[in-house]
């Protein structure tokens, strides 16, 4: 670039790096689309997709008032009041804009590519945020890192159309505006923070983390004696505007002023006012008088507050701590008390290896970054330190929150990398100068230059390995749509198992429109979205009793299950069975959760987990297994006619390839069900519930 001034060159390079990072973050998420097709992944995205379709077809008001009679039969679900509508509104808006511009894109494709698009935006916001914290160099490194960090990709590949996909963007945007607001102290930035916060609230329940982190930041500043008018203006504006805005989301409602999760924000707001008021008084009173007044006020206030909290909790105005929040603080809480929460795989505690798997080199750079943050403590740095430390803790508690950790890891690591590089590159670069002064400071300079070069090399290697690792993880672990499975055959070619869609299409084409399908709740969203049939329970696990009833049906004998199924007007039952192809997350492997959840309510008190184990305490499906297990509905539905099938060479018929055992109950007939459909690889089996016998029992 000989024609550009060095300043312009710098701008150009920055722009180039940033836009490449943004494009890369979009491109790296497309593995699944290239490998399979443009489909929605997993379970929850199907619900989001269905609601988005409804929103675009019927308009916002119908969407807002939508009472869904296809889910949770016969209870139904008020969709408008029980979701975070941000995601659907975003994609519907994008869709409408494109339609307006005569770009005729299908709503499904909007949904599929929304998450990659928003991760591009996240990349840019990360750059801005890090720039605000440190400098542009750190911003660029952080942007490049977040573009490919697996911890974030895991939830934002193309087709993974979920709240988190846009929520991370909203969260970082809020942080960016917040840092801006704290740094400048203007109402404008604080209001922008509130707006970004509103967007965040409208799109993800994880906003609770945000509304606790910011007050914590304010408190920390207060304690460190850094509380200033800037922070006061920023926080007061954010809290007032943000809270009022957040209450407009009907799912959130009055929670911001009632539930204990939001009390920290409210308390900090009050404290801010008191603190500012105290400062004001101090300026106008003599120290002795102030002391007296201060002490009296503090005692009265504390007493009043304490009483108020106790009274409100007792009268139930402040809702008790919800289960999900308890499980954040005490990882064993959910497992001991609420099986429905513990059963979700993404609510499990994180193993240390998954930290490395999802973050790789960032794990090592993070402490270094923290060091650099501490070494130059500013208001913004305190925020990022708090964010980092807190999210590490929460990510350790729940796998799902790795997502919140990944951005801060990138930011802090970006700071670290940039600081280290600028420190050492400086040493290598002025080689000519060094040559001249070589004789004067021999030892020192030679040593520094070599170390600098070595260091840059090592860091370069680490970063390169990071890139390779991230791409490999994305390609291998996070790009399978889970609705279509693939496996390698013996000759290395890819085999595709499309059984799920096969089964859902069968349901759609061959069952009456008002047929009710019972399955374990995992598949509820997919059945309603793809087969367009009524389900008893789905992934929105809002009613424990109802799920428990289904669990009881699955865990009972046929006769008892028949009563439950008739009570719920069930026409078809759908089970997932992986024993033939070796698909391990099938219903038999989830069965113990059904037993636990089924037994967790009064009506399921007769279902005891211990009955399903062998006397030695093992969960076995072979001949040694417990008789209760071998005769329950789930077992019979999974293994109906499986006893005659040869699955693996050198094994007896009825050999289950997931459990690696020959099934224990082979010869049985179904009394109250009849097999309606079994897919190609037996992954999905559908049974029809027989009517009452014509000539009586």
């Amino acid at each position: 670039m000989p024609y550009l001034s060095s300043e312009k060159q710098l701008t150009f390079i920055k722009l180039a790096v940033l836009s490449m990072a943004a494009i890369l973050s979009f491109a790296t998420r497309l593995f699944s689309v290239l490998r399979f097709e443009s489909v929605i992944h997993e379970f929850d995205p199907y619900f989001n997709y269905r609601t988005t379709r409804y929103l675009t077809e019927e308009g916002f008001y119908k969407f807002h008032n939508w009472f869904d009679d296809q889910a949770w039969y016969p209870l139904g679900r008020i969709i408008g009041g029980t979701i975070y509508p941000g995601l659907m509104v975003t994609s519907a808006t994008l869709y409408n804009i494109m339609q307006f511009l005569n770009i005729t894109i299908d709503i499904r494709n909007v949904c599929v590519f929304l998450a990659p698009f928003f991760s591009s935006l996240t990349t840019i916001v990360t750059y801005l945020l890090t720039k605000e914290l440190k400098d542009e160099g750190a911003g660029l490194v952080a942007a490049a890192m977040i573009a490919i960090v697996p911890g974030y990709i895991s939830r934002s590949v193309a087709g993974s159309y979920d709240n988190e996909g846009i929520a991370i963007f909203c969260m970082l945007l809020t942080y960016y505006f917040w840092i801006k607001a704290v740094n400048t102290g203007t109402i404008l930035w604080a209001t922008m923070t509130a707006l970004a916060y509103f967007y965040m609230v409208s799109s993800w329940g994880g906003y609770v983390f945000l509304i606790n982190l910011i007050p914590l930041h304010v408190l920390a500043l207060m304690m460190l004696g850094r509380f200033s008018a800037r922070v006061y203006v920023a926080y007061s504006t954010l809290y007032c505007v943000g809270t009022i805005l957040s209450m407009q989301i009907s799912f959130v409602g009055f929670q911001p002023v009632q539930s204990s999760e939001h009390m920290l924000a409210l308390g900090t707001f009050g404290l801010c006012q008191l603190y500012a008021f105290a400062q004001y008084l101090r300026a106008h009173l003599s120290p002795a008088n102030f002391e007296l007044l201060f002490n009296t006020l503090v005692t009265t206030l504390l007493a009043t507050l304490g009483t108020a909290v106790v009274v409100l909790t007792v009268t139930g105005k402040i809702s008790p701590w919800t289960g999900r929040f308890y499980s954040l603080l005490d990882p064993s809480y959910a497992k001991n008390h609420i099986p429905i929460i513990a059963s979700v795989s993404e609510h499990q505690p994180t193993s240390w290896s998954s930290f490395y798997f999802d973050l790789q080199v960032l794990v090592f750079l993070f402490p270094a970054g923290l060091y650099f943050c501490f070494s130059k403590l500013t208001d913004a740095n305190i925020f990022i330190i708090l964010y980092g430390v807190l999210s590490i803790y929460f990510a350790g508690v729940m796998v799902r929150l790795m997502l919140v950790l990944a951005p801060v890891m990138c930011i802090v690591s970006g700071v670290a990398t940039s600081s280290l590089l600028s420190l050492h590159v400086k040493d290598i670069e002025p080689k000519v100068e060094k040559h001249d002064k070589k004789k004067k400071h021999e030892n020192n300079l030679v040593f520094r230059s070599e170390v600098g070069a070595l260091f840059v090399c090592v860091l370069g290697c680490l970063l390169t390995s990071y890139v390779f690792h991230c791409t490999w993880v994305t390609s291998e672990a996070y790009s399978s749509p889970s609705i279509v499975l693939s496996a390698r055959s013996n000759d290395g070619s890819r085999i595709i198992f499309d059984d799920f869609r096969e089964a859902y299409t069968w349901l759609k084409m061959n069952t009456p429109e008002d047929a009710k399908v019972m399955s374990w709740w995992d598949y509820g969203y997919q059945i309603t979205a793809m087969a367009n049939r009524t389900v008893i329970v789905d992934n929105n696990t809002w009613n424990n009793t109802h799920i428990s009833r289904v669990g009881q049906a699955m865990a009972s004998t046929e006769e008892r299950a028949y009563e439950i199924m008739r009570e719920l007007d069930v026409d078809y039952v759908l089970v997932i069975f992986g024993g033939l192809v070796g698909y391990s997350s099938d219903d038999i492997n989830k069965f113990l959760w059904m037993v636990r959840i089924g037994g967790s309510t009064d009506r399921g008190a007769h279902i005891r987990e211990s009955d399903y184990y062998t006397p030695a305490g093992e969960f076995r499906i072979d001949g040694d297994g417990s008789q209760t297990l071998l005769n329950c509905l789930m077992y019979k539905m999974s293994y109906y006619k499986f006893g005659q099938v040869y699955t693996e060479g050198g094994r007896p018929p009825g050999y289950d390839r997931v459990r690696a055992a020959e099934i224990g109950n082979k010869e049985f007939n179904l009394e109250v069900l009849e097999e309606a459909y079994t897919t190609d690889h037996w992954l999905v089996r559908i049974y029809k519930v027989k009517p009452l016998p014509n000539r009586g029992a």
Partner: protein
Amino acid sequence: MKFSLILGITTCFSVALADQETLVLVDNLNIRETHSQFFKSLQDRGYSLTIKLADDANLLLSKYGEYLYKNLIIFAPSVVEFGGQIDTEIITKFIDDGGNVLVAGNAASGDVYREIATECGFEMDEESAAVIDHFNYDILDDGDHTRIVVSPKNLINAPTIVGMHNTQPILFEGTGIILDKENSLVLPILTADSTAYSYNPKSQVKEYPHAVGKKTVLIAALQARNNARIIYSGSLFFFSDEAFNSPVAKVQGDKVKSDLSGNKALAVHLSEWAFGERGQLRVRRVHHHRQGEKESSNTYTITDTVVYKIEIEELKNGKWQPFEANDVQLEFVRIDPFIRTTLRNKGNGVYESIFKVPDVWGVYQFKVDYDRTGYTRLYHTTQVSVRPLQHTQYERFIPSAYPYYVSAFSMMIGVFLFSFVFLYYKEDTPKSKMRCVYIFKLSPQHSDIQDGSV
């Protein structure tokens, strides 16, 4: 026009005919004579009877998937195995597809009978066992006390099945039946007296008899869930001319005497019921709508007032006519019934109920389950959604919230006024300087930008 009329008439006729096609399976063609009165009563009512030997090798119930007969009468106790394509499985399938069956056996009836009985929820006593009653036998009894006299009081209380005026004692000679306790659909049409038992009259009673006292059912019936009807009589003699014409005189006890047995009346009634001439109900129309509206709706809002109408018809003399009753109930069900109410008879077979939908949202069913002995089971459900209020349906202003409205609006006005005060307040010190300083203090960045651009 004329052609279509003729066509219509022929179709009606043929439909009517198809309903009357009846296959009669007999042991020997002699039964045609011994039971002529019964068969004649059927023929008089328009049934076309095809009488065949039970072991005829060409027996057929259906051809090319179409049933040739609507009704089946089996008067063949001594048959060991049916001929042609008929066996127990075919007969049960015939019932499951809606065919009506009338079976009469006697003490000698074989295993085929037992199999059919088991399929229908009855249990027939062992071979050669007969119902014996030493206190209620007829004077013409041959000494075994098996020709018993049964009081019409032992009939089931269901006029639709047995008719209104059964006053004559009934003659019975044959085997006893017991009912499957698990089966809720079977009906004991005629039970024996408490002194009766079922055993082989030729042998000494060594074990506890199969059926004793009132548990001994002489004639049983089953109305299947698809409304196919089955009458199962332990006695073929019951339908015979001999029983129809015979006088009755009890030897023991109250010594009831009658010139004529009640058999004929009862047998005719039973056949009328079994072949669907009586007790047939159907739902003609169901309509439900919000009160004050005409159109039906699939969705109601909580606490709506709903009008539910159902029109029920009964088959009388071959014609569908309005059904009159006062005990038809409606349930509004979401797993459990939230509302259960008796429908008002509005005349002309229309039943109506007006009620308020509960204040609980969900998917409900209007459920009419009219199950009366002898009548078709009337089961009709309509699924509707009950949704919560829409965002426009809530009250705008709630009286109890007035303090909040006042505080909100006063705050708004206050801020508005305050902004004027703030903007135009003049302090004593020289104003230009002061204002400058103020702005600079408030937003340092802003001033920087201004400096830069100027």
